[in-house]
């Protein structure tokens, strides 16, 4: 399973390395979103710094949708999906591999967005490790759920419009938790409230990763 996961993740990242779709389209989109949020909330830096945690995570969610669409679409042409299923790769490995590749791309993207939030909105981060952990856990959760829904919607002609509708409400706890952890990390002080949310993220990740590992095979059959 783990070897298969590494193979699939390597394949997806290699495709990204050669096509540069995430780098040249998804990442700039994230920056555009940050700029648009700034326009929406006005030039008052205090307001923007206050809203920075939420804006960061909303931008991440939007980018997740794009990353998942991309992750599905690389399999949708040339019968690649059938090829993967024929290759004897363990479905659980396939799931983890796809999720891992998406997560790796999102982490890079989040570094960029975090830098953008600090530079453009003037957000001050007091407890960097909490931000790092929240991004890591949140990203795992988003990649885990996103890959599941991506597989469910992969055979559909209306995939592009349906996927965000299905995925974004499911990801609501990630947005809430991520935002609260960021707020705690920006305020400094005791990390007690942040810890509660970190635990929630851990539960979210474990639950959806477990579902994916168990059910990815049957889900593929529906596509």
């Amino acid at each position, binding site marked *: 399973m783990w070897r298969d996961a590494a193979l699939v993740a390597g394949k997806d990242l290699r495709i990204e390395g050669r096509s540069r779709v995430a780098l040249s389209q998804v990442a700039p989109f994230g920056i555009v979103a940050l700029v648009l949020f700034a326009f929406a909330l006005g030039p008052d830096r205090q307001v923007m710094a206050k809203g920075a945690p939420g804006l960061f995570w909303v931008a991440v969610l939007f980018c997740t949708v794009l990353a998942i669409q991309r992750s599905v679409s690389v399999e949708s042409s040339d019968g690649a999906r059938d090829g993967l299923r024929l290759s004897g790769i363990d479905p659980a490995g396939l799931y983890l591999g796809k999720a891992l590749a998406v997560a790796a791309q999102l982490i890079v993207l989040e570094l960029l967005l975090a830098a953008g939030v600090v530079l453009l909105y003037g957000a001050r981060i007091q407890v960097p490790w909490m931000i790092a952990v929240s991004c890591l856990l949140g990203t795992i959760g988003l990649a885990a759920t996103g890959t599941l829904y991506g597989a469910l919607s992969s055979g559909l002609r209306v995939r592009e419009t349906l996927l965000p509708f299905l995925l974004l409400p499911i990801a609501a706890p990630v947005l809430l938790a991520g935002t*609260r952890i960021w707020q705690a990390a920006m305020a400094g002080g005791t990390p007690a409230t942040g810890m509660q949310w970190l635990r929630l993220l851990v539960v*979210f990740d474990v639950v*959806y990763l477990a579902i994916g590992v168990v059910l990815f095979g049957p889900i593929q059959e529906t596509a």
Partner: protein
Amino acid sequence: MTDDPSTTAVTDVSGPAPMAHPPAGPVTNTGVSPVPARSPRSKLVERSIGTIALVGTVATVWLGIWVTPPDRIQGDLVRLVYIHPGVAWVALYLAFGLAAVSSLLYLWPRTRSLFWDRLAAAAVEVGVVFSACTLVSGSIWGKPTWGVWWAWDARLTLTAVLLVLFLGYLALRQIPAEPEVRARRSAFVALFAAIDVPLVHFSVNWWNTLHQGATVLNPGLKLKIHGSMALTLLLGFVALTLVFVWMLLVRYRIGVLEDWLAANELDLALIERQSEGGGPVDGGPVGMGAIDELSTDRVVVA
């Protein structure tokens, strides 16, 4: 194809199909399978539940508006208590609980049957209506008591998220697919959504809480209100639950008919086109007459 007269004719069928009733009757030489028949007993059950639900609802309204006293603090506003928690109970616990359980039963290989799929679909659709009513009645109550139509309170937010999750489920069901494929896909989505509910619940609770604690379903089930008010409240719960059951039965039956129509649409249209040319099809007396008959009860296209 949707302008096809047979479509309207079939939706007018005044009552076929009991739960999980297999299509009965002889398969005919026209390629059209018989309209799923409906046993007199299931019809009776459905009508009885419908009647009791109606009577119960009317009684709740009567008691709620004319008999029970106004509240000391909230005045007449308190009368919303006879509707709002009951609607919420149906939407959030009954409907979505049932949808989750039946989706799980569909996915479980031993209990896999389209029965569970249709039941889940019916439950979600009715649940969406009820949760929309929950939000609307809550808003009407919230404006005078809290001063706002909407507050980002934990329970309101959870209800709204649930509504959106299950609207997604319905959107997915709209996509044409083989019944089995659609059933599996929908069951997965319902299951993922159901698993998300406790997580959303905890997160919105930590996020913000403004709503009063549960009045009726508090630990120990001790009613905190008394007399005619408690009675009306209880009656409202029962009546709304019955309304839910009745809507569920009807929606299930429509689901069976929809599947039948989807499977036979083309054949029905063919019969109709052929009958326009005059003369019977395949030697049988089939023509517009047979399709017209669909608007009556228990018809077999023969």
